[in-house]
């Protein structure tokens, strides 16, 4: 935004805008800070896509997949489970600090594209559950030829 008025070519707001942009860039994490006001959902996940499939990556460290249920429809993905952590109330064990989330969780997300859930594959490695869902063939965009008259 450039202010041009009686000041001529001087741009008093440009400096401030530039400074603000530089400060934002310095603290790369500013994107994440803006989310802190909202309650975060558990477990955290990312949705990505490549040419042929959607990829949902879910962070669930230290879990046994027996405690997780993953279900898909063409439009949504649901993940439900329970995270058990080391018993803190065992005899002679004192919990000095407890930050890791524990307990039941359930989350449903809407998928950004129509998918073919029958061909989905899920893999758990290093505490990350990666679900690959092929896109629905029938929903692929089709080229429509335009005839000129």
């Amino acid at each position, binding site marked *: 935004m450039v202010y041009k008025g009686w000041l001529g070519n001087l741009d008093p707001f440009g400096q401030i805008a530039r400074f603000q942009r530089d400060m934002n860039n310095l603290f*790369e*994490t500013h994107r*994440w800070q803006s989310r802190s006001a909202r309650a*975060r*959902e558990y477990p*955290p*996940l*990312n*949705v*990505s*896509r*490549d*040419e042929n499939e959607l*990829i949902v*990556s879910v*962070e*669930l*460290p*230290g*879990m046994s997949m027996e405690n997780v249920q993953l279900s898909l429809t063409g439009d949504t993905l649901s993940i439900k489970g329970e995270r058990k*952590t*080391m018993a*803190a109330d065992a005899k*002679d*064990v*004192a*919990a*000095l*600090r*407890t*930050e*890791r*989330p524990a307990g039941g969780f359930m989350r449903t997300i809407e998928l*950004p594209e129509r998918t073919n859930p029958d061909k989905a594959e899920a893999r*758990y*490695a*290093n*505490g*990350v559950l*990666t679900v690959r869902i092929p896109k629905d063939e029938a929903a692929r965009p089709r080229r429509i030829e335009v005839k000129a008259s």
Partner: protein
Amino acid sequence: MTNERHMTRRKNAEPAREDGPFRTPAVDIRETPGELVLLADMPGVDDKGLQVSIEENTLTIVGNPVPTLPENARTLHAEIEPHAFRRAFTLSNDLQLDAVEGSIKHGLLTLTLPKARGAKVRRIPIKSE
């Protein structure tokens, strides 16, 4: 927060970016009569990406996650911060710092820090009216 000088007793050779942004892993700390147990959530980290180091009384854990996406994938929705994990702790003198053991499985780091033998436990009487 961390000691940027020599990192002694490195578990792995791969360095994380010392100057870059990082994520703080959630940690549980439990104490038993003989040891402290530290559990840290570091999803995506395997033992190649893990660095545990102790310098004087500072314990630093660093985890570099293994990328899981194919090269040409585009992220549509991101809740996961794309940074390495890093956290430092100040340890008490009552621990045997050279007997610390750790392992990482399913992205969960478990560190066992044995207490020194004969560590004194002083009970402090609390008076109330």
